[in-house]
């Protein structure tokens, strides 16, 4: 029988014990508490039939997955769709997960893939990288919030126009603050290639946003 604290989700009325008693099979309900288990243990529990372990994985990673997706698509609506897609794919693939990378790395890899696919589907096929207008630095003033906001928007547009792998590397390194080993694991390739992608992303942005 699951203990209530195993299934606790903050901010919700905890009636799960009653709900689980009503709906869950004995095989799923049996087992030790999961709330304090690490990700690997949750994966093993899921693969052993504890489907409630997946809910804990969702709860742990949903925020960072959402933020990663948002940084690719730039809208709540799209990010909401993508994060749902990521976790549905994860649910379907978790039974085959072999633990060769961390759960986070695996989820990020799925997130990057679905995000880049969404971006690619929307991008104008003939829009060249050079189409980005250079920054109008004449208007920049350190105390001018509006100008600063526009400059930041211009940087975001420039980032959005980077080649997919450069953009993904930049997002994972700068915003998700991952090390190069994990970026290489997510995107495929070597650590050196990840650093080179990062360099080329910054160099491309330099051409676009600096005078």
């Amino acid at each position, binding site marked *: 029988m699951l203990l209530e604290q195993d*299934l606790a*989700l903050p*901010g*919700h*009325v*905890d*009636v*799960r014990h*009653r*709900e*689980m008693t009503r*709906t*869950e*099979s004995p095989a*799923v309900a049996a087992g030790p508490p999961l709330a304090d288990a690490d990700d690997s243990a949750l994966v093993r529990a899921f693969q052993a039939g504890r*489907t*409630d372990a*997946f*809910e804990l994985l*969702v709860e742990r990673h*949903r925020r960072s997955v*959402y*933020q990663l997706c*948002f*940084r690719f698509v*730039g809208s*709540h609506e799209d*990010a*909401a769709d993508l*994060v*749902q897609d990521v*976790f*549905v794919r994860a*649910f*379907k693939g978790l039974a085959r997960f072999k633990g060769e990378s961390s759960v986070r790395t695996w989820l990020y890899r799925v997130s990057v893939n679905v995000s880049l696919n969404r971006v690619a589907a929307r991008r104008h096929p003939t829009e060249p990288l050079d189409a980005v207008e250079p920054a109008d630095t004449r208007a920049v003033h350190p105390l001018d919030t509006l100008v600063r906001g526009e*400059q*930041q*928007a211009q*940087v*975001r547009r420039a*980032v959005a126009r980077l080649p997919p792998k450069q953009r993904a590397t*930049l997002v994972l390194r*700068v*915003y998700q603050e991952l090390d190069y080993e994990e970026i290489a694991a997510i995107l495929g390739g070597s650590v*050196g290639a990840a*650093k*080179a992608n*990062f*360099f*080329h992303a*910054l*160099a491309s*942005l*330099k051409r676009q*946003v*600096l005078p």
Partner: protein
Amino acid sequence: MTHHLTPEETIAAIERTLEPARAAHLDGCEPCRREVVDLGGVLTAVRAADEPAEPSPLFWDHMTARVRDAVHSGGSPARAAWGRFWQPLVGLAAAAAVLMWIAGRAPQAPAQPPATGSAVVADAGAAPPAEAPWDAVMELAAGLSLDEVHRAVPLRLDNAVLFDELSAEEQAALAELLDSELRGLE
């Protein structure tokens, strides 16, 4: 004279992890130093351009319900466990019950319960369909304890009533309110 910094070394220099031997080159090489300064400036601009995305807490409830639905519709073996993703709606039911209590327990209820509130009527007899969202909410709401309501809604509930203490008309009004909220979540 040593060769200029490679891309990897340039990144290392920006991140202050460049090995000392190459740092010596950087000190004496104006083109490399300028490149590091420029790209470091770009990196600062990229960091400043971030738009941290933080959705509403309600979004997570909705998202987990949507994932549950998507998995459920795929015929997943986890359908029983995902049933608990209706749990956030229990808070909604509790909140609605409290709202009714605040309104003085005298709502302008319709003469007949709305069609979507059939579970209220069904409590007296007919069994509701097992997987209808509304029925699931009503089933959970009917079993709420006062403590559970209190945890879901941070208000004084000294005079609150449990769902099964409501009159038929009050239950119908609550059904209508909850149905309206559920439609808003869809």
